[in-house]
C-alpha cells in the first residue's frame, strides 16, 4: 500500500512535468504541430527589412495568416528575399497583393501586412509578391525632416 501511493505520486510528478513541458512548448513558444502541408510558401522582395526577423507574423487586417519562415539576401538584385508560410485556408490572395512591413505599436515587433488587390488570379505555392513596401525607417524620416526636404 505504501509502495503504491509512492508510485502514484511519482507518476503524477512525471505527468505534471510533461504537462508543464507542453505548456512551455505550445503556450509560451507558440510551437504548432501543423505540418508543411497546411501552409503554402510565398516570396516577396523588400529594399529594407528594418528589423523584421524569421518567425515574424504575416497578417491581413490584423489577423495572423502566416509567418515569416526564412530571410536571405538576393545577391542579384541586392534586396532582401523573404519567404513566408501562409495558411492554406487563406487561399484567395490576389497576385497583385501588396506586402508591407509594419510595426506593432510604436516600439513593437515588425510584421508583414498584406492587402489584396483586384486581380482575378490567386497566389499559389512558390509565387512572388511584387508589390512591396519596405519598413518605415525612423532615422531616414528624421533625417529628411532635419534637412527640410
Amino acid at each position: 500500500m505504501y509502495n503504491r501511493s509512492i508510485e502514484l505520486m511519482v507518476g503524477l510528478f512525471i505527468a505534471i512535468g510533461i504537462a508543464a513541458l507542453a505548456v512551455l512548448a505550445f503556450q509560451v513558444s507558440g510551437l504548432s504541430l501543423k505540418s508543411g502541408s497546411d501552409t503554402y510558401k510565398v516570396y516577396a522582395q523588400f529594399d529594407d527589412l528594418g528589423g523584421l526577423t524569421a518567425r515574424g507574423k504575416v497578417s491581413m487586417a490584423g489577423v495572423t495568416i502566416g509567418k515569416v519562415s526564412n530571410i536571405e539576401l538576393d545577391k542579384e538584385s541586392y534586396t532582401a528575399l523573404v519567404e513566408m508560410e501562409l495558411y492554406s485556408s487563406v487561399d484567395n490572395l490576389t497576385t497583385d497583393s501588396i506586402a508591407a512591413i509594419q510595426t506593432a505599436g510604436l516600439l513593437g515587433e515588425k510584421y508583414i501586412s498584406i492587402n489584396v488587390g483586384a486581380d482575378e488570379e490567386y497566389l499559389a505555392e512558390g509565387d512572388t509578391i511584387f508589390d512591396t513596401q519596405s519598413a518605415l525607417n525612423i532615422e531616414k524620416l528624421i533625417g529628411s525632416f532635419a534637412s527640410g526636404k
Partner: protein
Amino acid sequence: MLGYFRKLGASTMHSLSVLGRSGLFLWNSLVGIPDLRNGMPLLIKQLYSVGVLSLVIIVVSGLFIGMVLGLQGYNILVDYGSEQAIGQMVALTLVRELGPVVTGLLFAGRAGSALTAEIGLMKATEQLSSMEMMGVDPLRRIIAPRLWAGFISMPILAIIFSAVGIWGGMLVGVDWLGVYEGSFWANMQSSVSFEKDILNGIIKSLVFGFVCTWIAVFQGYDSTPTSEGISIATTKTVVYSSLAVLGLDFVLTAVMFAAF
C-alpha cells in the same frame, strides 16, 4: 620556502585524487547492465524523495519569482509604454536562466543535502560495509538509484518551475496590473523559440542535475564517518553544488546564447 611548495604539491595531489575517486565512483555506479526488475522500485522510491518532495519548494519559489519578475518588469517597461513586452521578458528570463539556475540551487539545498546526509549516515553506521559483506554492491543498490533519480527529476523540476513562474508573471501582469492578455501571450510566442530557448534551458537543467546529484552523492559516500564528517560533507555539497551551478551556467550561456 620549500615547505610552501610541498604544501602546494600535497594539496594538488589531494584534489586530483578526490577528482579521480569521484570519477571512478560515478563510472562504477552507472556503468553496467541495469537490473530493471529489482532496480525500478528503488528508483521510484528515490524519485519520490528527490523529485516529488522537492515539488512544493519549486512550485512556491517559481510562483514568487515569476510574480516578482512581473512586477519589476512592469515598473521598468511602463515608462516606455511597452508593458505588453512583460510576457516575453518574464518568459525568456525564466526559461533561459532563472528556471534552471534557481531550480539547481534549490535542488542542491533541498535534495542534495538530504542525499549527502543519508549516505553519510549509512557510511557512519557501517550499513554500506555490511552490504558489501552480504555480497550486495552498495554502488549499485544505494548510489545508482539516487544518481538516476537526480538526473531525471532535475529537468522536470526546472520545467515545472518555468511554467509556474510564467503563470505567476501572468497573474501579476495581466490580472493585477492590467496588461492586455492577448498581447502578453502574442509577444511571448513571437519571441520565445522552442529549439533555441526552451530546449537549451532543458539542456542546462540536465547538466545542473547531473553535477548536483554527482556532488551530493559523492560527498556522502566519501565523507569521514563521524557526525562532524557528515556535517562537513553536507556543507560541502551545498557550497560546491551552488558554485558549480553558477559557474557552469556562465559557460553554458556563453556557448548557447552568445553571438560570436
